[in-house]
């Protein structure tokens, strides 16, 4: 039985800057997703004289492990060899290829001749055919579209042309853009292509007809417009030109309403990858009529002089515009989607056979990408709240959690993508640096909005001011001292609205709505590895400013043990692994609230979030505020006043012993539980999402 190195080997010049490499990358992704293994063989195309690195999209696919680069000269065995670009074989090979393939196909993505090839054709189809035959036997040619097919047929050379075109593909999910609103108060026309003269109309009149110099429309160009500007003798004031590669095409497409593409009359646009990307983003495309054989009824065909009228008509009729937009996306998905490529590969070699070990790559989420930013230098409460919001928002957002170490680990444990803010950025006086760091990460992640959880309104305020058009909202305990002692359910606890943010942009923290998500006592103890029967107290002594467990831990643990409970404490910070006395358990419980029914009572430093969770779980608790935290002291006092928990304010043996004795009393426990049960919670998640402009 033959063993193969790869299901598919793609042979091309991996340096091409434009559509060739984009198409390679798309096929690599589609193959990986379908479970096919891919090897890439780089072959220098004779016409690529400039020194270039590999195309970045190809490099990113290699870095991600979606394909492997086959070292030059290594012999490789594959089920299918796909050669992309006939010009690779326009001249005699300078280095031998050592590829053994069961089947080979040449993807002809370039015509042998067009109106710009002047006296010399780009390649001689007969010579290419013969060179390929010497290496791999007779190789079928697969044109990427009807225009190349016609050009090959017109050449008069006898070629084995496949019946089906090998069309370029795109993953529509990666390109889709929300088209529910126009981009501006006037139509925005755009185009994306290399700034080569072949890519622009040759006449001044055609350029100005398709891309009017008229303030009634905005024209945006990605890829450079030098040939057009040279032809016009000026750059119209309503044109915005971005150089080739200066911004992500998808981001560019999100800033235009119409994709209008007219090129040099002599140029045979083999396919127009840029067009399917534009259409996949939901942009109605307006094209020269000769593209009809590729894009059927999904595009609008017009001469340059008809462009303006088509645009005005659609802009006046949003319903028709949206219908066109949806038709574009649907057509691209059906004809040029990932499934198209997988089907033709299956037709070629059947199901994957080489056992790719690469996990199937996930697709880009269509959800709104949100940075969840915790600016709290200590404790776990802030990150816990943000994780809860991510949990509550579900598929509506694609979150990235940003927070300090080690709290951010909770986010990682919850399966979120996380970034760590270095400690020194959270020091007082470095707010500006902190804001810059967050905004840099926003760019790196392409986030649509930012939700901040912070006591420190100054940093949040700066962030909101610096974020420009990016929506920023805040959540978390509000800053004014009067409301720092909020206890869930109390009127003061619902008095949200922080001076740092507009009222609508601040939302109450997400709190558990019910106790349904809590594990039963038995299940929780089993998961935590705790004995099933022993009376058990949860001890959350809190952390100090260095995120080191409080020195109170051991004296309190001893006192609790003396009162007949075993002790479980959570420790995510320091000291893991040290031996523990009998009846003391170190637990890893994230999120903690899920496990609260494992315990009979709790002794805790009343952090904002922990207090909410203890009350929501109706766990009889003794609150013991940190000496440094006024908020905790106020919160403990308020909770005691409302009968939700016991509290001591002096950290000493006598008051602690008295309080623990009280907590042992079953009547006291019952009273505390009843008071907690009467508290009504509201969920802040919908409000937070609404503040970010995300549909709830």
């Amino acid at each position, binding site marked *: 039985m033959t063993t193969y190195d790869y299901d598919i080997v793609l042979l091309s010049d991996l340096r091409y800057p434009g559509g060739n490499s984009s198409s390679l990358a798309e096929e690599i992704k589609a193959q990986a997703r379908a479970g096919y293994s891919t090897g890439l063989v780089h072959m220098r195309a004779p016409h690529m004289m400039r020194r270039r690195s590999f195309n970045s999209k190809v490099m990113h696919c290699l870095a*991600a492990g979606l394909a492997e680069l086959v070292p030059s000269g290594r012999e490789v065995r594959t089920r299918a060899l796909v050669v992309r670009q006939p010009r690779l074989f326009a001249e005699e090979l300078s280095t031998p290829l050592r590829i053994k393939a069961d089947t080979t196909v040449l993807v002809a993505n370039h015509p042998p001749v067009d109106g710009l090839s002047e006296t010399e054709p780009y390649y001689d189809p007969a010579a290419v055919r013969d060179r390929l035959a010497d290496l791999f036997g007779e190789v079928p040619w697969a044109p990427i579209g009807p225009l190349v097919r016609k050009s090959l047929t017109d050449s008069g050379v006898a070629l084995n042309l496949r019946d089906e075109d090998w069309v370029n593909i795109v993953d529509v999910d990666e390109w889709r853009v929300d088209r529910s609103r126009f981009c501006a108060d006037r139509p925005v026309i755009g185009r994306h292509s290399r700034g080569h003269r072949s890519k622009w109309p040759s006449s001044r009149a055609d350029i100005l007809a398709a891309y009017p110099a008229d303030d009634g429309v905005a024209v945006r160009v990605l890829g450079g417009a030098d040939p057009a500007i040279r032809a016009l003798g000026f750059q119209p004031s309503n044109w915005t030109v971005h150089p080739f590669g200066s911004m992500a095409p998808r981001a560019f497409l999100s800033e235009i309403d119409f994709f209008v593409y007219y090129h040099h009359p002599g140029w045979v646009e083999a396919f127009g990858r840029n067009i399917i990307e534009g259409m996949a983003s939901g942009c109605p495309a307006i094209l020269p009529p000769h593209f009809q054989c590729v894009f059927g009824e999904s595009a609008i065909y017009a001469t340059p002089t008809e462009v303006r009228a088509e645009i005005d008509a659609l802009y006046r009729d949003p319903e028709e515009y949206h219908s066109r937009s949806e038709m574009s996306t649907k057509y691209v998905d059906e004809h040029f989607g990932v499934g198209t490529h997988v089907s033709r590969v299956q037709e070629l070699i059947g199901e994957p056979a080489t056992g790719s070990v690469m996990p199937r*790559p996930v697709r880009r989420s269509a959800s709104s990408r949100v940075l969840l930013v915790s600016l709290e230098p200590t404790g776990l409460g802030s990150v816990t709240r943000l994780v809860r919001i991510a949990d509550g928002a579900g598929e509506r957002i*694609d979150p990235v959690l940003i927070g300090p170490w080690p709290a951010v680990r909770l986010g990682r444990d919850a399966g979120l993508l*996380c970034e*760590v803010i270095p400690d*020194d950025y959270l020091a007082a006086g470095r707010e500006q640096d902190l804001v810059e760091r967050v905004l*840099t990460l926003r760019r*790196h992640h392409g986030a649509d909005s930012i939700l901040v959880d912070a006591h420190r309104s100054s940093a949040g305020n700066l962030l909101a001011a610096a974020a420009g058009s990016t929506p920023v909202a805040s959540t978390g305990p509000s800053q004014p001292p009067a409301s720092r002692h909020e206890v869930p359910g109390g009127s003061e606890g619902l008095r949200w609205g922080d001076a740092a943010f507009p009222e609508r942009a601040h939302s109450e923290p997400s709190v558990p709505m019910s106790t349904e998500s809590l594990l039963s006592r038995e299940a929780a103890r089993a998961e935590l590895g705790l004995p099933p029967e022993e009376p058990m107290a949860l001890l959350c002594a809190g952390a100090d400013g260095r995120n080191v467990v*409080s020195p109170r831990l051991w004296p309190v643990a001893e006192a609790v043990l003396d009162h007949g409970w075993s002790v479980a404490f959570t420790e995510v910070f320091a000291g893991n692994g040290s031996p523990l006395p009998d009846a003391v358990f170190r637990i890893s419980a994230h999120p903690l609230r899920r496990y609260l029914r494992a315990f009979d009572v709790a002794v805790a430093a009343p952090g904002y979030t922990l207090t909410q969770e203890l009350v929501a779980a109706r766990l009889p608790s003794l609150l013991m505020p940190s000496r440094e935290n006024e908020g905790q002291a106020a919160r403990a006092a308020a909770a005691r006043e409302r009968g939700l928990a016991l509290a001591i304010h002096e950290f000493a043996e006598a008051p602690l012993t008295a309080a623990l004795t009280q907590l042992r009393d079953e009547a006291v426990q019952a009273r505390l539980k009843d008071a907690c049960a009467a508290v009504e919670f509201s969920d802040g998640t919908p409000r937070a999402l609404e503040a970010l402009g995300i549909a709830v």
Partner: protein
Amino acid sequence: MSRTEDRFAIARAEEELRSQLKVEKARSAALERDLEALRSSEAFRIGHALVEGLLGRLRWNVRALRPAIGHWLRRGAPGASSQESVAHTPTRGDVELEGQNVVLFIAWGMDEADLEQHVERVNRLQAMLIDVQPLFVVDTTAFDPIRERGYPVEYLIPLVEWRERRPPQEWGAYVTQRISALREEHRPRTVIVLDGPSSVTALEQGVINSILLPGLGETDDNDLDR
């Protein structure tokens, strides 16, 4: 006082000390920032440039007398001029980074134990070489070994986590942008990749010393600027 009450008193005392330490650290950090702001100020730059100019002349004159007072001088191996020295100094358009020798250690794919070993060796390296300021880039959040020694550390999302939630081919662009931003911010002179046990050996056997101190093979001087 009972034994238990004694423990409460100790805990209270520790809390008090930690609290004071926190205040002191904040004060120290604020002073550090003030100093940096002062150094970046226009007045300081002008003053600094004047002093440098005068010192440059002084150095030049002293060099002319080197044969006579050679053993007094620690600076300047044969052929190393003060201009060459300056050319190696990173600048951020000002004097802020002058004299800093940030070495970027990319510690990749390590668990906490591996990281501990590597950081320990970097710590030794730092003890041997003047002015080496390590900056770590890691793909794990278990970076206690780095923090414990007070080194700055930056975390990058590892590919294995990225591809759970995002298209994997987008990771390359993410890493490129993150590293570019870090280079812009910290201006490291040298980048060293630590990737597995062999890099511990390279640290241990001094292979990396030669990268940080190119003059090591030809002189007993330890001027990092050469």
